[in-house]
């Protein structure tokens, strides 16, 4: 092996610095483009929510000519946000809680491998992801009518809980499987009942996974349009996505009001995500590698 001269080593060092610089710039550029793809529509939505209809069409991408703050008060009044927002919050909160808790129970049960058919059960629940909502909407309509739930929020809560299970079991299954078996045994010896073990040991340890499931399910439950359009057609049981559509007319649309409603509708979800980003990310990767 021949020793490198000082000049050679300097040349190599300079080349390595240039390569690192280039990779750094390329990476930053790529991330900037991705960020813009997310942030531009949000900025467009917020700006459009302050525009009048002529301003919206005359100057679709610029700042509002006059800031129409009353879009928000009108949206609150005309789109019945005062009704649809609480409805959406209640339906999403109860459904997220119900489906996450049930998914955790199922995932934990399946992870206790001594139960026969565990893999079959896991596949059965996760296969639910393959079923399109449009396919089940007619039987759902008939079932809800038969149960007499039309006009109540339960008409949305029950289907949402059921539809949230596949994703919940998919994410929580591997999380539950990586829970150390000795911890469960230790709790048994310590005198805990099965329910106490689940509540005091299993649930806290699955927390990152639970938060991921809650956010992922919460987003689609909050935004779901098709099911509430079919089964929650009464104004008092409508949710925000359906309420927003009331601004869209056959001949004219109050786009400023539509976007104001969308901003109000998006804000809570965005806020929740920002609050729990770290837990969300660790929940998605939990169980991916042996800890």
């Amino acid at each position, binding site marked *: 092996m021949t020793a490198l001269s000082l000049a050679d080593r300097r040349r190599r060092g300079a080349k390595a610095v240039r390569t690192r610089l280039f990779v750094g710039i390329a990476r930053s550029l790529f991330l900037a483009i991705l960020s813009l793809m997310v942030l531009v529509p949000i900025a467009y939505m917020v700006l459009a929510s302050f525009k009048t209809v002529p301003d919206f069409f005359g100057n679709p991408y610029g700042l509002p000519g006059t800031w129409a703050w009353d879009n928000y008060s009108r949206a609150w009044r005309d789109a019945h946000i005062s009704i649809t927002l609480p409805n959406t919050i209640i339906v999403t909160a109860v459904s997220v809680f119900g489906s996450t808790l049930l998914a955790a129970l199922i995932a934990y049960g399946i992870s206790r491998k001594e139960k026969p058919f565990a893999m079959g059960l896991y596949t059965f629940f996760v296969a639910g992801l393959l079923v399109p909502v449009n396919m089940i909407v007619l039987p759902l309509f008939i079932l809800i009518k038969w149960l007499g739930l039309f006009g109540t929020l339960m008409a949305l809560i029950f289907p949402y809980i059921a539809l949230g299970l596949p994703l919940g079991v998919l994410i929580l299954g591997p999380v539950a499987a990586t829970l*150390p078996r*000795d*911890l469960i*045994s*230790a*709790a*048994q*010896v*310590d*005198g*805990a*009942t099965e329910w*106490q073990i689940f509540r*005091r*040991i299993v649930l*806290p*340890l699955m*927390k990152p996974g639970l938060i991921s499931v809650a956010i992922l399910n919460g987003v689609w439950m909050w935004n779901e349009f098709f099911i509430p359009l079919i089964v929650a057609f009464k104004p008092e049981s409508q949710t925000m996505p359906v309420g927003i559509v009331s601004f869209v007319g056959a001949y004219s649309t109050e786009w400023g009001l539509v976007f104001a409603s969308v901003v109000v509708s998006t804000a809570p979800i965005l806020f929740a995500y920002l609050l729990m980003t770290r837990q969300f990310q660790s929940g998605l990767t939990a169980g991916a590698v042996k800890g």
Partner: protein
Amino acid sequence: MANVTLKNLTKTYPGQVTAVDNLSLEIADGEFLVLVGPSGCGKSTALKMIAGLEPITAGEVLIADEVVNEYASRDRDIAMVFQSYALYPHMSVFDNIAFSLQIAKVPKAEITRRVGEVARILQLEDYLRRKPGNLSGGQRQRVAMGRAIIRQPSVFLMDEPLSNLDAKLRVQMRSEIAQIQRRVKVTTIYVTHDQVEAMTMGDRVALMKDGVLQQVDTPDNIYNRPANTFVASFIGSPSMNLYRARLEGEVASCTLVLGGNRLAIPASVFADRAELAAKIGADIIVGLRPEDLEDAALLPTHPADQRLAAHVILNESLGSDHMVHFPIDAPLAKVSDQDSLDEIVVAEGVCIGRFGARSLVKAGQSIEVAVACDRLHFFDAATGLAI
């Protein structure tokens, strides 16, 4: 406090794999019994069956003379220390220790008092607010002990609680656990694969192999009177040297033919072993403990007919003594223990002797080895059982 009785305890997994086979044991109230054996011998499975964490295929577990087969773990009045410690990572040290009392709805003031007491005994007072993730291995081990002690159970079950500690800490914790057990006098069943733990901690040692109990006795008896070749080779480090040999002559003037060597067997050996005389003329297995072999140069008065001619191939000096390796041309007695590294050495036909610190032997030298023939061990060549 309670005695524990195992009656024909058996565990068979699907596929007819028998992990524990017909295990019967009587553990007295307050006794410290060590269950020892190589990996996969069924000792942990037996412990889990006692704890109620593993269903029993056949047999009975009795705690305080009551059959507990159908009892849940929480109803057996036991506490268990796990190999992994199994500390709840989301709880503080205080909550980990207090968990069983919280579950039992013990008043808060009483919980605080008892946790404080246990923390004082285990020197954990400064760590009660920490999470297990912020503790060292030894501290975690003490928390696991604290969690067991605080319940004041009838029986302690410990599943290799020291195996995750480094060597120095293991020695320290070994004596701490033994002292705690002597202080609280709770019946303890301690599982380990480490023979040093087994020999130093237990009142009695139960040795298992392939799910079958081989011998249960005091550490001294296990060492000095092994029931079979497996026990003989498992207990002791380096392990006992086992060779096929033949006894010739008669009781008064018996000779052990060990390959090309002949060793005079004192008549006193036969006095202790009634069946040995009948084996004269037959093949047997002879066991030589390394400490019963010595550099003959250090024992000039040792009888000439109790010496082996040897060629040293390796001398491992430990300061206090020397581990001297030399081949013997006798056939080996095979003992199946895949975990034992000593077995590999023995499998190569090498005998190990523990020579005194003053020995000057070097690798490559031809020497004479003095054999304490009155301390030889004899086993049946067909069954491997002690004679």
